[in-house]
């Protein structure tokens, strides 16, 4: 039993820190630290910087352009990135589709699509959820009917994050109407510029446009865009959903958020004293800090188990649940710390510093981010679904 990172891992941490110090653009880091939303340009810029060192596709094997990192290295990288204000890597192409192609794609697909992910030439989005399906992914209704060398796709996807930036979408489609769901789903790559694809924005409660609906009307998709075998898509979908879930707790995000919260609580005053000295607020902060300290070790234990050959099954559900609870609590506390200044809402201040916020600088995004991140416990398999998984897998109930 040893909680210390190895000297090699510590050296790696230093390397990451140096890289971030030298290469992370200040205009991006400032936005991240302020809780502002990033533009597509910001994200492309950061992905390209990471890719100069093969750190963009850091879940990929070296032969495909990844760095060949261990789970511990990824954990260190995520934490240091978050602390430095590095943006989250947009996962759809590089962390979701990439591993599926590497595992189930044919050679031609790998040769064609993987480099385009790395270069940023393709921006991918995800066509999993459908209206009215919620976390019941197997109830796919979008159909793909084979006609000669094409599939004809009809149906609708929803909650498509950053679909407005994407030129490609990977979809679960139903290719057999008779068979039971798990034997009738296929995994298809669709060009968003195809005739018949229509994207409609969904505005979220914080006023933001981040997710979308995608409609497919007689969309022609070449058969070579089928990944793996027809009607085996459910297997690939599940692989995608469970692949490399050891980072799902978002510990890096939380460590950075806690640091930000502490700065705020020392700075914001309640009747002449720092909020950090208010007994109730201090207790809230301490509780989430302790929970996070415990979660860090819980996360590393799962990582170590995976490194030791274990498979993260229901454990990743535990990381998802508590990880999102901690993140949401930290965002709640930042909102609470703003007092009345949580109310003013200057929409432009979400994106740029040009419009000065009202009250302390952190106030600009505090409430909006709190509301936006209610999604954490809903998307990616709601926390209720995660509890069902735990019941089944660990408890055997």
């Amino acid at each position: 039993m040893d909680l210390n990172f190895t000297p090699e891992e510590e050296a790696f941490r230093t390397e990451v820190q140096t890289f971030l110090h030298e290469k992370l653009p200040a205009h991006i880091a400032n936005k991240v630290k302020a809780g502002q939303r990033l533009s597509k340009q910001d994200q492309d810029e950061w992905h390209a910087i990471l890719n100069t060192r093969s750190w963009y596709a850091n879940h990929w094997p070296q032969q495909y352009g990844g760095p060949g990192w261990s789970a511990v290295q990824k954990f260190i990288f995520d934490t240091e990135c978050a602390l430095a204000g590095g943006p989250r890597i947009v996962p759809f192409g590089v962390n979701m589709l990439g591993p599926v192609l590497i595992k189930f794609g044919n050679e031609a697909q790998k040769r064609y699509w993987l480099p385009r992910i790395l270069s940023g030439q393709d921006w991918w989005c995800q066509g999993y959820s459908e209206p009215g399906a919620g976390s019941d992914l197997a109830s796919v209704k979008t159909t793909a009917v084979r006609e000669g060398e094409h599939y004809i796709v009809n149906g609708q996807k929803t909650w498509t994050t950053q679909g407005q930036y994407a030129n490609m979408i990977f979809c679960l489609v139903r290719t057999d109407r008779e068979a039971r769901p798990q034997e009738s789903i296929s995994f298809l790559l669709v060009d968003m510029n195809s005739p018949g694809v229509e994207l409609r924005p969904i505005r979220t409660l914080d006023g933001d446009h981040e997710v979308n609906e995608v409609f497919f009307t007689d969309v022609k998709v070449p058969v070579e865009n089928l990944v793996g075998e027809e009607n085996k898509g459910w297997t690939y979908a599940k692989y995608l959903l469970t692949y490399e879930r050891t980072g799902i707790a978002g510990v890096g995000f939380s460590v950075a958020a806690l640091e930000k919260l502490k700065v705020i609580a020392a700075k914001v005053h309640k009747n002449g004293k720092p909020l950090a000295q208010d007994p109730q607020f201090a207790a809230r902060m301490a509780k989430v800090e302790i929970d996070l300290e415990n979660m860090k070790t819980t996360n590393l234990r799962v990582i170590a188990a995976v490194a030791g050959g274990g498979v993260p099954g229901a454990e990743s559900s535990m990381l998802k649940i508590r990880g999102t609870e901690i993140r949401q609590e930290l965002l709640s506390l930042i909102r609470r710390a703003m007092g009345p200044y949580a109310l003013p809402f200057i929409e432009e201040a979400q994106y740029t510093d040009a419009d000065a916020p009202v009250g302390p600088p952190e106030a600009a995004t505090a409430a909006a981010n709190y509301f936006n991140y209610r999604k954490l416990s809903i998307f990616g398999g709601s926390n209720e679904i995660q509890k069902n998984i735990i019941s089944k897998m660990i408890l055997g109930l």
Partner: protein
Amino acid sequence: MNFEHTEDRRMLADTLNRFIAEQYGIESRNHIAYGAQGRSPALWQQFADLGAIGALFPEAEGGFGGAGFDIAVVFEALGQGLVVEPFLGTLMVGQALLAAGNAAQKARLAELIDGGTLLALAHEEPDAHYELARVATRAVPQGDGWVLTGQKAMVLFGDQADVLLVSARTSGAVDSEEGISLFLLPGNAVGLEHRGYGRIDGGHAAEITLNNVQVCADALLGNLGQGFATLERAVGYGILALCAEALGAMDVAKKNTLEYLQTRKQFGKPIGSFQALQHRMADLLLEVEQARSAVINAAAAIDAGERITRERALSAAKYSLGRIGTLVAEESIQLHGGIGMTWELPLSHYAKRLVMIDHQLGDEDHHLARFIALGQPH
């Protein structure tokens, strides 16, 4: 003991509910709330005509209500409709005028009840974080009058108000209850600057800067340096109003969520058939009923009882509604799933309002601490 509202109050509630349903449906509401002014002067006038403002003040002063339960009935209806009109400032400033005004000042009340004046309470300051006695804004005597200097935070409709009730310190330490004076200022006073903005939950507010604003002697409301009691009383009415508003909003959020659980299907069954969700919904229901009781306690206490009893009931209610409002908002969204986060669904706006009510006139932590402090031996 009797938990039925009087016939008059039931009629008032019915009238308001009908009017809101017809004129203030969620689309109109969002158009108004997130619009350039964050309110609708035309509808405000209609609210006044329906007696919604008059119900907040006693008959002796030209209104036809003014009891705690009158105020609760009005604001519960406003909460059900997510109404963003300037009722809160009107109530608080109006009650302050009633409590401490001289004849000339009280005379303004008639205009106010007619909907002709927009009033705002400019009290909270950047570093106060809900502490009522913290006033750094200073009023210095000059000639017959005073000169005011300082900053006021998150003043509801402070950019559009005809009259502002401003607290300023004429003596005492920055956090002392003694030495706070209240002044009535016209919205266009020279040296009064405002930066208006929309609120995330709809409606408008403003930051106010007082740069050597000169006011006459008759601007003083009540006795010099004795403004705290008036302020506490006025803010007490505001707390009751916010609690009732939250109750109205959470009833709607609860109802919407219940309907969703009954109709939305997943894995082939209505999601309301899943026991884990049923139990959470049962908890929510229980909490909402406790919140309703807290509002009743506060409404009863505001008209009776000595200060400590009254203010403890108000703090107990604000704590309860703050805690339960946030819980209802978060659970309602969670039980709806993704759709609960969309702008299109009315629920999301109720959720925002419920959470943000906890950021007005003291959050749950503040009022829990206040409840404790008021209960300590003095």
